[in-house]
């Protein structure tokens, strides 16, 4: 009985430690994608899922949690109308447009519009690297692809973003990776 009890307490301790380490990063990850309003519910869903599937958690759990969060966001978006998605996206992108100087404002506005114009897979890989500060191997774990594939995706996404910022490529001409739809669900389904 003691051993069993220890196992249950060990599980709770392990989860508590994981929660303490990961709550902030996961909250940030979700807020960067859905805005503040919906983040609370999704973060709760992420950690409830993690609690129920704790046995599957790898030692470095953050990419695993991001992947759960990505699925949760995909589930949420599936049930929403397009205008709601666009509204959410505008909320997330709004902070990009705030800056002190006029030229910075203009540049960040351009950057926000360019990011918004990217296909979701491109946008996600850039967010993972630039905002979540993951290395390519961890970003690949989140997206369920190989590190090599991730590097290729990242390279292409960077170039597309730069071209959009330069105005060299109109938004409607953005290439979508083969087999991917412009919806987070497409990434989720490929895993």
């Amino acid at each position: 009985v003691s051993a069993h009890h220890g196992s249950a307490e060990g599980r709770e301790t392990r989860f508590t430690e994981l929660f303490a380490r990961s709550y902030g990063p996961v909250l940030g990850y979700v807020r960067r994608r859905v805005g503040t309003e919906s983040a609370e519910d999704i973060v709760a869903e992420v950690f409830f899922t993690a609690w129920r599937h704790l046995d599957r958690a790898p030692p470095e759990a953050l990419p695993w949690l991001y992947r759960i969060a990505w699925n949760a966001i995909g589930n949420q978006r599936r049930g929403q109308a397009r205008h709601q998605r666009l509204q959410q996206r505008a909320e997330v992108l709004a902070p990009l447009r705030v800056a002190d100087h006029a030229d910075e404002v203009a540049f960040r506005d351009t950057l926000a519009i360019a990011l918004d114009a990217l296909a979701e897979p491109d946008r996600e890989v850039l967010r993972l690297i630039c905002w979540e500060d993951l290395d390519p191997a961890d970003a690949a774990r989140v997206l369920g692809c190989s590190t090599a594939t991730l590097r290729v995706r990242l390279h292409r996404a960077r170039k597309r973003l730069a071209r959009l910022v330069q105005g060299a490529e109109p938004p409607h001409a953005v290439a979508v990776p083969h087999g991917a739809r412009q919806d987070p669900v497409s990434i989720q389904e490929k895993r």
Partner: protein
Amino acid sequence: MNDKRMTENVVASLAEANPVPAVELIAAARSAQADLLLGRILSSEPYPDGRRRAGAGLAGTRTLTRKIWLGTGAATVAVAAAIAVYGQTAASNDNPAASRPDAVAGGRSSVRPAHLVDFSRRDGSIVVKITDPDAPSSQLNAIFRAHGLEIKVNVIPVSPSLAGTIVYSDVQSTRELRDGNCDTGGGGGCWVGFIVPASFTRPGNVTVGRAAHPGEQYESTASVFGPGEALQGSGLVGKPAADALPVLRVRHLTVRWMVNGLWTHSPATPDGLISDGMGWNSTTVVIDVHVPGAKSPGPPVRKH
């Protein structure tokens, strides 16, 4: 500017334009909102398919624990009241997060409320009762933090009459909440909670007793002859040590003798009169024996 340089600049700018900088999230894990979420998760079903935790024995242990606890009369009222009023207290609590559990839990019906600690208000004070001492310390700590109290809860195995009671506290500016219908083995009402001013913010430590598992050594123990303890009603205090042997046999207990305050390693039953004793674990008791005329006076004989 060449393409490569331009790409690097754009990507660098994107990194700088992070809409939720990491620095904003440093304190997030210690927020009341996070604490409340953690408490709710830890009190929810831990496996996806509803199977029990590894080892069904745990559930059995908890049942046994609760029976012992309730058997002392210690916190019957507290448990019933806590479960009954949880919804009201959660809804009326000043903590805004606690007043909207569905928002935090995502409105999922599988999430049951955590009624491990009962918080209620009385005349400008907060009355706190720990209603489930079987809960792990981390969970109890999280709930206290969620209510703005930096009180660390340590849960230790104790002898039966102390299960569900507070056995130690260094929390300042508190009043003890005692259950007058309950006696511990040490005598007096059971210390089942505390009362702090509503504005209370000082840190502190509280140690709560839980029922020990079979064979687990008690970290806090009461007189073994007291209410709820292993030799309650045996009438052995003041009797010759040899009189304890048949009683111990009937109650399936083994004994360690302490003669005039000193352990004896002799397997023989010592001469002298039984003066007191304490529980060691669920199957072993320590009995103090006083030998008149010996150099060490030993503890005085207790009356039960």
